[in-house]
C-alpha cells in the first residue's frame, strides 16, 4: 500500500520537504501539503522593504506553484493533530489520516504578549519588519524620519533570523547617511543578550562593526513593557530606553496548531524533536522541520534546507522500518547585510561557532567567512534566485553539503570569552 505523508505548512521547510519526497517516491507515496492560504512569502526580503530596496508585491508567490505537480495541496485551516489516531483535524470538520506527519508550521509573532507593545503608537511610531504589512508601513515611517532616537529592540529569543535586527541597524545607518541626516539620528540596538550575538568570536566582529558605524548597543535589557505614548521601553528590572521610533522584534512562539495538539509542543509551542533526527519525542511517526522545531539552531531558511536532507532520509528509513539517523548537525549559513553594498557570511553548527575562513571551497572560496565583502553582498542577492529555483524545489546547492565542513575554517580564531562571576 502507498504510504501517505501529510505535511502541515507550505513555507520554506514544508515546500522543500514535499518536493524532495516527491522526487524520491514518485507514485509510490501519497504526499499531501496543507496550508491556510496560497501566499508564499520570501521572508529574507522583508529586511529590505523598509529601505525601499525590495518591492513588497515582488516577495509573494503562489504556494501551490512551488510544489511539484504530483503533490496534493489542500488550502485549509488545521484545527489540531490527533497523534493517537494519526489524524489531522481540519477546521471545517474534514479529517485527513496519515502514516507519517511532518510539522512545518513555522514560528508565529506574539506582539500581544509584551505589555503595551500593541497599544498606543503601534504602527504609528512602533513597527516590526517581520511581517509584510509591518515592513511596508515602516517604509513610510522611515522616509519621514529625519531626526531623533531610532531604537531596534529584540524582545527575547528565539526569533526568526537572529541576525536580521543587526542587519536592520546597519542598513538604517546607511539609509540615514545617504539622506545626509545620520548626525541627527541616534541608532540604538537593545538586546536581552550580553552581546550583539551569542557566539563569542562572531560577537567580537559584529560588535566592532556596529561600533564603527556609531550604533549604540545596549545589552542584557529584558523588555517588560513598552510605553508607546511616552516613547520608552521599560525593562523587568526598571531600566528605561527612550525612543522616537521603535522597531520591535516581538516574542516568537510556535504555531497555534502545535499548541492545540496535546503532547507535541514545549511551553512556547515549538515541536519537541530530537535535534539530530528531527523525530518528535514520544511520537515516532511525527517529524518536524524548520522554524517549528525546538532544536537549538537558528530559525533560518538555511537550517530548513540542511534539515531537509536528514528529514527525507529519516522518513524513508521510518517507512522502511529501519532506525532513524541522527545526521543533522545544526548547520546554519547566513549572509549578514551590512550596508554600502557589503555583507558578511557566517557558517556554523551546534558545536562550532562562526569563525573566519573561506567558503564554500576551503582554498579558493570565493566567499570570505566573517569578513565584510562586496562578493558576500552579491551572494546575498543571488540567494533570492536560488531560493525559488534551488531551495524550494528541494535540490542540493552545488558545493555546499548538508553537514558543516571544517575545511577552510580558521578554528584558531575562536575566542574563549572570560568573565568574572
Amino acid at each position, binding site marked *: 500500500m502507498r504510504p501517505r505523508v501529510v505535511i502541515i505548512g507550505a513555507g520554506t521547510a514544508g515546500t522543500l520537504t514535499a518536493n524532495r519526497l516527491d522526487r524520491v517516491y514518485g507514485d509510490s507515496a501519497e504526499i499531501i501539503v496543507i496550508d491556510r492560504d496560497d501566499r508564499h512569502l520570501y521572508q529574507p526580503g522583508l529586511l529590505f522593504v523598509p529601505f525601499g530596496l525590495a518591492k513588497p508585491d515582488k516577495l509573494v508567490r503562489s504556494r501551490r506553484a512551488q510544489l511539484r505537480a504530483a503533490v496534493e495541496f489542500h488550502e485549509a485551516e488545521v484545527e489540531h493533530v490527533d497523534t493517537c489516531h494519526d489524524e489531522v483535524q481540519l477546521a471545517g470538520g474534514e479529517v485527513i489520516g496519515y502514516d507519517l506527519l511532518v510539522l512545518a508550521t513555522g514560528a508565529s509573532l506574539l506582539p500581544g504578549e509584551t505589555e503595551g507593545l500593541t497599544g498606543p503608537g503601534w504602527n504609528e511610531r512602533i513597527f516590526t519588519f517581520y511581517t509584510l504589512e509591518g515592513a511596508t508601513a515602516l517604509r513610510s515611517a522611515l522616509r519621514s524620519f529625519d531626526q531623533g532616537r531610532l531604537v531596534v529592540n529584540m524582545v*527575547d*529569543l*528565539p526569533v526568526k533570523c*537572529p541576525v536580521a535586527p543587526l542587519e536592520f541597524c546597519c542598513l538604517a545607518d546607511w539609509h540615514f547617511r545617504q539622506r545626509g541626516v545620520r548626525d541627527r539620528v541616534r541608532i540604538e540596538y537593545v538586546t536581552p*543578550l550580553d552581546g550583539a*550575538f*551569542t*557566539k563569542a568570536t562572531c560577537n567580537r566582529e559584529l560588535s566592532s562593526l556596529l561600533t564603527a558605524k556609531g550604533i549604540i548597543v545596549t545589552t*542584557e535589557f*529584558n523588555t*517588560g513593557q513598552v510605553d508607546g505614548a511616552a516613547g520608552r521601553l521599560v525593562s*523587568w*528590572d526598571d531600566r528605561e530606553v527612550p525612543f522616537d521610533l521603535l522597531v520591535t522584534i516581538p*516574542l516568537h512562539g510556535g504555531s497555534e496548531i502545535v499548541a492545540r495538539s496535546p503532547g507535541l509542543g*514545549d*511551553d*512556547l509551542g515549538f515541536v519537541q524533536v530530537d535535534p539530530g533526527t528531527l523525530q518528535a519525542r514520544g511520537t515516532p511517526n511525527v517529524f518536524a522541520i524548520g522554524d517549528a522545531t525546538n532544536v*537549538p*539552531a*537558528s*530559525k533560518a531558511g538555511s537550517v530548513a534546507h540542511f534539515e531537509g536532507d536528514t528529514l527525507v532520509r529519516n522518513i524513508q528509513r521510518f517507512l522502511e522500518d529501519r532506525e532513524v539517523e541522527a545526521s543533522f548537525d545544526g548547520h546554519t549559513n547566513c549572509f549578514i547585510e551590512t550596508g554600502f553594498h557589503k555583507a558578511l557570511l557566517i557558517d556554523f553548527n551546534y558545536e562550532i561557532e562562526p569563525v573566519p575562513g573561506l567558503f564554500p571551497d576551503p582554498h579558493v572560496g570565493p566567499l570570505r567567512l566573517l569578513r565584510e565583502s562586496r562578493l558576500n553582498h552579491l551572494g546575498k542577492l543571488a540567494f533570492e534566485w536560488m531560493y525559488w529555483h534551488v531551495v524550494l524545489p528541494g535540490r542540493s546547492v552545488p558545493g555546499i553539503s548538508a553537514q558543516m565542513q571544517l575545511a577552510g575554517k580558521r578554528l584558531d580564531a575562536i575566542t*574563549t*570569552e*572570560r*568573565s*568574572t*562571576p
Partner: protein
Amino acid sequence: MTTITATDLRPVERDAEGFFVYPEQWTETMAPEIALENGLGALTDRHWQVIRFMRTTYLETGAAPSIRTLGKTSGVPVKELYQLFPKGPAKLAAKIAGIPKPRGCI
C-alpha cells in the same frame, strides 16, 4: 571565585562564568554560598522555589529553562524573578542551582 568543596571533598568544577560543569556535584548546602558570591543575600522560600524548579526541569529535559518558561511555569511571575535574581534571573538561578548556563537559541 571561592573554591566550593563537594561532600566527597573533590573540588567542584565550574566554567569561566561560574556554572557547574558537573551538575551532579551540586548539593543544596552549596546554594547559599554561590548566592553570596553573586551578591545575593539570604535565600528565601521564593528563591528556593525557583532554584528547585530550575534543577528539576534541567534533570528532566536536559536543558535549563528560559526566563519565559520560568515566568509561565515556575509559579513565580517574571517581575518577581527579577527582584529575586537581579539582572538575569535564568542565568543567576541556574548558577545557584548548579546546572549549566541556559542556552540562547541562536
